[in-house]
């Protein structure tokens, strides 16, 4: 045994070192049995001598048999029985030899495989070739095999056949054996599918074949040309582990009951079978899990429908009834408290991860909004508060301030959100399986398919319980670690932000809050005492007040309505041609104007005002004499006088005239310009929409309401002089400056060119552009370029 041992590889030696205490134990145990058998042998002394021609095995056998033989005389042991035991022992020897030999071959195969295939592939590091999934833990398998072989050899070499105890060897190694093979078998399926995918790719296939060829060469040299392909290489360990129970069973059958190995073999056989069952179960569970995990994914509606047959429907309906039963009965019969606990934890963890992810992301978003904004505010205020008249050069202020939050966001993404997101995506698989487990539970309780449902349920349950614990532990750990990261990041962020704010300020002990108002209020007072502020804010308020007060006050003195006596006097004094009627109510806007109410009768004394303008006429109302705009008047027609109210479209004329700014009309009247009303409109349009324009209106409280609509009705009102008197020279203007048309809609003008203005605004109502006609062409021209032709 010793020289053989030295031949082994280094790894094996290490292994043996590790196993040394065990080996000692084994030796001790062997000697114990030897002592026993020696004692038995002493008593069997004479018999042994009498059968000295027998083989050593026979003698050993006899030793075991002797206690009885001694008592009941040697003759009772028949020749036949002896022969049978002898046959058994021979067979046993053969089986043991086979066992050792095959184990040796197996180990050799594995070594070759590792040396010729696994190591080269690993060294090459071919892209896309995952050696680890491919061969999984084949090295550990080889080690276990080597250990087993050494133990077997130790147990058989130089030990008398009757004392060879094989069962113990297997019992000793069963722990590591199970662990190692479980892993290997567990991954074999994957390895197989990976192999299939590799064979589709030329390059990888070439690499694999290359290694395989060298391996084949070796095999052929050794005279064992039975290697087929990669698959057969991969499946070898599985075949081997399945072989163990068979061999042990054979060994047990050929071991006489008195043999010290019998009992151990029995145990070993059972445990090896258990190992196989466990491995099988593990694989089955995995398959089951994979089946159900996949079941809902990547399945189209069509496939789902196609699966919907009588069987599945009845299954589903049974589940529903069972579910109802459980609901009504309260407790389920089958309970697994570990699973329940783990499931609860699982769900809590999931919820927690989800919450945490969502609110952290939200918080991050808010932070990204808030923090740059806050900094920008500081920068703005700094610009306002600190800059002198000349803008300070950019280098002074941190032009592109370092952005701690960008960094923070990236870190947060990497350390918190990323892992949490990844974690969250892992929850769906177990969830599906938990659901499936419940379904199976219902099947099981319903007793639908009895054994199958139960086995499936148990497999699923076992797998879930086992893995959920791992899952929960890891997920919790991850979550905790993420929270730690979050805290650390927040802390770092706060530190950086503080540094950022400290830098531009460079401030000492800043004043406290009341102090600030103490500093600021005198400044503000000073500002308020500035002339323009005082004037304008004061007038502003005054106007507001006057607006409210004047309204009733102004109405009274100015409206002295015409009475019938006045009317009849006018009718009698003036001729019908001189009589006119007010179409609308009009207010006095200038000195010497008189207000008129709608329908009031007036006699026109003169069809112009003192400055020669024909737009204002001197009239007599019977009450007083004064000026009135001609456009408010129409010739008096006694027949129509009753229905005079609603005959015109210039509903709001009064409003636009009366709302003219007082200053404007004053100057207009000076020029005697007949288009003063237009000027008024323009002036107003320029200022309308701002506070000033509004206040002008306020001075005529009576018309406030209508004037608010002024913008809406401006177009018709502007157009009225043209329509009223189409041939008036009022529409003839001349160009003050030359204007060059920039588009087809515009009209080119030369200086002093005469134009007819057709409309005093453009299509959108803009009064800065008028529609004009000159030399048969029409187009828009800027109003400010035109002046009215006067005949002075």
């Amino acid at each position, binding site marked *: 045994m010793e020289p053989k041992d030295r031949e082994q590889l280094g790894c094996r030696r290490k292994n043996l070192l590790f196993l040394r205490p065990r080996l000692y134990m084994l030796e001790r145990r062997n000697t114990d049995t030897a002592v026993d058998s020696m004692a038995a042998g002493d008593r069997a002394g004479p018999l042994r001598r009498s059968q000295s021609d027998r083989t050593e095995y026979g003698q050993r056998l006899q030793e075991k048999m002797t206690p009885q033989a001694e008592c009941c005389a040697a003759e009772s042991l028949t020749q036949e029985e002896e022969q049978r035991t002898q046959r058994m022992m021979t067979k046993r020897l053969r089986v043991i030899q086979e066992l050792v030999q095959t184990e040796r071959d197996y180990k050799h195969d594995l070594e070759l495989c590792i040396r010729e295939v696994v190591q080269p592939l690993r060294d090459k590091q071919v892209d896309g070739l995952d050696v680890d999934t491919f061969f999984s833990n084949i090295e550990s398998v080889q080690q276990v095999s080597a250990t087993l072989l050494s133990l077997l050899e130790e147990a058989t070499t130089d030990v008398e056949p009757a004392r060879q105890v094989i069962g113990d060897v297997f019992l000793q190694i069963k722990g590591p054996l199970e662990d190692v093979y479980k892993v290997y078998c567990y991954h074999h399926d994957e390895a197989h599918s990976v192999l299939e995918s590799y064979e589709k790719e030329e390059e990888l296939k070439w690499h694999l074949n290359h290694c395989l060829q060298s391996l084949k060469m070796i095999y052929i040299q050794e005279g064992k040309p039975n290697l087929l392909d990669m698959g057969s290489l991969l499946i070898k360990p599985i075949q081997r582990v399945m072989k163990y129970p068979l061999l042990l069973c054979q060994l047990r059958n050929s071991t006489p009951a008195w043999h010290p190995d019998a009992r151990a073999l029995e145990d070993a056989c059972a445990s090896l079978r258990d190992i196989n069952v466990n491995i099988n179960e593990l694989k089955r569970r995995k398959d089951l899990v994979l089946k159900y995990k996949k079941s809902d994914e990547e399945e189209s509606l069509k496939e789902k429908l196609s699966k919907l047959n009588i069987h599945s429907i009845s299954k589903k309906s049974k589940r529903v009834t069972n579910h109802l039963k459980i609901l009504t009965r309260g407790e389920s019969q089958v309970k697994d408290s570990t699973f329940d606990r783990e499931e609860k934890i699982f769900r809590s963890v999931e919820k927690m991860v989800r919450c945490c992810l969502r609110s952290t992301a939200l918080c991050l978003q808010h932070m990204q909004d808030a923090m740059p*904004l806050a900094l920008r505010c500081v920068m703005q205020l700094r610009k306002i508060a600190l800059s002198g008249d000349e803008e300070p050069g950019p280098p002074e202020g941190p032009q592109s301030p370092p952005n701690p939050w960008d960094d923070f966001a990236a870190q947060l993404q990497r350390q918190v959100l990323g892992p949490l997101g990844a974690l969250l995506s892992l929850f769906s698989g177990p969830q599906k399986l938990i659901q499936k487990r419940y379904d199976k539970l219902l099947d099981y309780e319903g007793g639908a398919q009895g054994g199958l449902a139960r086995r499936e349920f148990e497999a699923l349950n076992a797998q879930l319980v086992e893995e959920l614990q791992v*899952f929960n532990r890891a997920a919790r750990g991850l979550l905790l670690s993420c929270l730690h990261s979050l805290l650390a990041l927040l802390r770092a962020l706060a530190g950086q932000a503080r540094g950022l704010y*400290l830098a531009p300020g460079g401030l000492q002990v800043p004043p406290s809050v009341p102090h600030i108002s103490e500093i600021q209020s005198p400044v*503000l007072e000073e500002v308020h005492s500035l002339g323009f*502020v005082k004037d304008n804010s004061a007038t502003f308020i005054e106007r507001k007040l006057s607006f409210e007060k004047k309204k009733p006050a102004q109405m009274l003195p100015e409206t002295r309505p015409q009475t019938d006596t006045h009317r009849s006097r006018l009718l009698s004094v003036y001729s019908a041609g001189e009589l006119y009627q007010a179409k609308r109510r009009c207010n006095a806007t200038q000195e010497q104007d008189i207000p008129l109410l709608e329908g009031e009768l007036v006699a026109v004394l003169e069809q112009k005002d003192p400055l020669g303008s024909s737009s204002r006429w001197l009239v007599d109302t019977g009450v007083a004499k004064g000026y009135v705009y001609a456009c408010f008047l129409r010739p008096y027609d006694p027949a129509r006088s009753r229905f005079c109210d609603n005959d015109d479209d210039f509903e709001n004329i009064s409003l636009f005239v009366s709302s003219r700014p007082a200053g404007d009309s004053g100057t207009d009247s*000076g020029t005697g310009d007949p288009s003063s009303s237009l000027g008024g409109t323009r002036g107003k349009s320029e200022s309308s929409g701002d506070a000033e324009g509004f206040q002008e209106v306020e001075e005529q409280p009576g018309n406030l309401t209508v004037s608010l609509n002024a913008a809406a009705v401006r177009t018709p009102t502007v157009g009225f002089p043209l329509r009223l008197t189409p041939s008036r020279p009022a529409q003839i203007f001349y160009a003050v400056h030359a204007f060059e048309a920039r588009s087809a809609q515009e009209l080119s003008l030369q200086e002093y060119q005469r134009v007819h203005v057709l409309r005093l605004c453009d299509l959108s109502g803009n009064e800065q552009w008028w529609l004009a006609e000159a030399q048969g062409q029409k187009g828009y021209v800027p109003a400010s370029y035109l002046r009215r032709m006067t005949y002075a």
Partner: protein
Amino acid sequence: MSWIPFKIGQPKKQIVPKTVERDFEREYGKLQQLEEQTKRLQKDMKKSADADLAMSKSAVKISLDLLSNPLCEQDQDFLNMVTALDTAMKRMDAFNQEKVNQIQKTVIEPLKKFGSVFPSLNMAVKRREQALQDYRRLQAKVEKYEEKEKTGPVLAKLHQAREELRPVRDDFEAKNKQLLDEMPRFYSSRLDYFQPSFESLIRAQVVYYSEMHKIFGDLTQQLDQPGHSDEQRERENEAKLSELRALSIVADD
């Protein structure tokens, strides 16, 4: 006001000296810019305050969500962690609230007060503009009559126009002078006015972040096992994730 391109060629006698007009434009321009700045700042400050509040609310929500999770009842480690986090977040929220209040009092309100002066200024400028227009128009009228033949009615009108012109001109000049005088004063007052606000704003932020830093620093020290570096943590996370992915119950696609 509009149609600036057309104004260029307008024949007009310069009644206001160009330099005066330029000074005025410059001063008013600066003030307009200032108004624009304060308006924008005011808006931004408000937005910023809202955003700050939203931020701390969402931060508090993280810990509240966690605290309400049933897992906390089962797991002492978690409970400790989450309660500590919750306390920290609430304190942060309180500090944030205080910061926002402080800023409101020392920055936003003064801004508002300062901003309320601008309408008066604008109105004053508008009035000046109007007065100027009137002045121009009347001036033009006077000139027109001066050029004309000096007949009786023309002389009467000239006289009338001159009479009208005088108060308008005085009015304009008074307004112009006042504004030219006062606008720079107003403009420079902003320095004294906003300096304390600025300092207060900086102070509020610095205090806030110092507190945050302290709170979270204490917390990490209280919770953390010997300080893990970021890389370590990342590696651990990665290891945990791959451990999870290796489970057969986890869909690995």
